[in-house]
């Protein structure tokens, strides 16, 4: 491509240096490996898991904090400035918060695994501090955004959710240290709703309004229905919060997941229509993972609805957690497997023949292995919970670890080729 080098440097100057987002992505690939590996020694406690310190809780937070939030931070710091046309206020602050967050997640999850409340509290403090700094950067970026109301609506809702998720996390950490400030069921309810569905879910759903049309080369979904879908998701979160705080719980506990299902369903319809109308509608394995992610999220909401209605679902808390974390993980890995080569190509130094092609930076064999292992591990984990089988949990952990290593290889190849 004949773009003059100076022009490309100018264009790239508006982006964060590649080292910052790729550090987040690299850390996420390591935590991804650890999350699946933790299931092997934690197999006995996993099928009946219903909260409390130990390896299952550590594995869950290695996924949520270590993979999902870590990737969301890196991707949003990289892509939000492009979407909103607002540069990141302080690249140095973005880099620093990445290191603090990494240390915080490591200490938090180790504290959970070892059932060491003091280590957990120290890690939680660092994690909360880093996420608060990220929230400040996010707010500054969203405040200046113009012309992308769907992304900013999702972004602001995710921002509020992050605040509530952090507050409820601190309440839970304080309770583990013997200083309860909120009834544990209320804190757990608020934390799950606002950390997983609110912060992670809305951030991913919001970015999907740019990423899916970008992948499929299609027009963006229509603004009105997109904002209505976001409104339904926000309403579901508000209903869930009120229910968690004991307000009209009998009505709101089932209503919240029902409205959440409506929001998710409308989002999926909008995304599928956009994909189908694009110039590149066939998105391959990466979009299969995205669809598995949607299915996992929908199934988690259905389990939540069944629990609220008092329907007897065996080992419902573990099943709910696996569907929610596995769904979000599938969705995010599907997106990440497409954007990593693209971002790597964007950051590469053009050679004599121009910049490298994203397809040349994609290592297909590791991605294919990851795809099979990820789906296999997710299915094994669900079967393990359904059958109350520790052996199947260990098998899921082993298969998932192989898949995570393959995804790490895909990421390492993209980084290596980007630097060459």
């Amino acid at each position, binding site marked *: 491509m004949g773009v003059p080098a100076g022009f490309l440097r100018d264009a790239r100057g508006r982006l964060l240096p590649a080292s910052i987002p790729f550090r987040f992505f690299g850390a996420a690939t390591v935590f991804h490996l650890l999350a699946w590996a933790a299931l092997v020694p934690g197999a006995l406690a996993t099928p009946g898991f219903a909260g409390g310190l130990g390896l299952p809780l550590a594995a869950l937070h290695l996924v949520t904090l270590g993979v999902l939030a870590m990737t969301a931070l890196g991707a949003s710091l990289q892509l939000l400035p492009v979407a909103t046309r607002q540069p990141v206020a302080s690249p140095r602050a973005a880099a620093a918060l990445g290191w603090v967050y990494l240390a915080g997640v490591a200490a938090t999850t180790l504290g959970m695994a070892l059932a060491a409340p003091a280590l957990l509290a120290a890690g939680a403090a660092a994690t909360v501090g880093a996420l608060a700094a990220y929230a400040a950067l996010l707010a500054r970026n969203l405040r200046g955004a113009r*012309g992308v109301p769907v992304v900013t609506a999702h972004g602001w809702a995710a921002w509020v959710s992050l605040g509530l998720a952090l507050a409820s996390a601190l309440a839970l950490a304080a309770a583990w240290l013997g200083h309860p400030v909120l009834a544990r069921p209320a804190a757990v309810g608020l934390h799950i709703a606002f950390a997983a569905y609110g912060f992670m879910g809305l951030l991913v759903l919001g970015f999907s309004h740019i990423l899916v049309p*970008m992948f499929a080369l299609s*027009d963006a*979904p229509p*603004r009105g229905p997109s904002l209505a879908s976001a409104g339904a998701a926000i309403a579901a979160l508000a209903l869930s919060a009120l229910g968690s705080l004991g307000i009209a719980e009998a009505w709101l506990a089932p209503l919240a997941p029902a409205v959440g299902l409506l929001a998710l369903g409308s989002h999926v319809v909008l995304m599928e229509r956009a994909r189908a109308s694009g110039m590149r509608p066939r998105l391959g394995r990466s979009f299969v993972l995205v669809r598995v992610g949607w299915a996992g999220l929908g199934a988690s909401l259905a389990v939540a609805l069944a629990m609220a209605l008092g329907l007897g679902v065996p080992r419902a808390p573990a099943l709910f957690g696996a569907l929610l974390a596995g769904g979000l993980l599938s969705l995010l890995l599907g997106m990440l497997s497409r954007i990593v080569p693209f971002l790597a190509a964007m950051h590469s130094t053009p050679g004599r023949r121009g910049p490298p092609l994203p397809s040349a930076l994609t290592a297909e064999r590791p991605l294919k292995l990851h795809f099979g292992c990820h789906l296999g591990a997710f299915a094994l984990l669900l079967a393990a919970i359904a059958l109350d089988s520790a052996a199947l949990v260990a098998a899921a952990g082993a298969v998932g670890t192989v898949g995570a290593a393959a995804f790490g290889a895909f990421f390492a190849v993209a980084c290596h080729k980007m630097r060459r």
Partner: protein
Amino acid sequence: MTSEPAPRRWSEPDGAHIDVRGLPPPQPLVAILRLVRETGDDAGAAVIVHHDRDPVLLYPELAELGWRADRVAGEPGEVRLRLTRAR
């Protein structure tokens, strides 16, 4: 499919022009690539893009299609690109 404003397109002797200024992402990317695909494989074909920012997401997609981008002079505040088939 969308309620966003459409890009303006016209033809001049130097190629097919497209003005994507003011469009939110990813509409400029999609509109430009749609025009590039419509322009076809003619070795002499050119697309002139009138943009209000550096389209950083466009370059990897153009490279995949075998096209190149060159910056050309434009109005103040405008990023004008000439897209042609890479030789």
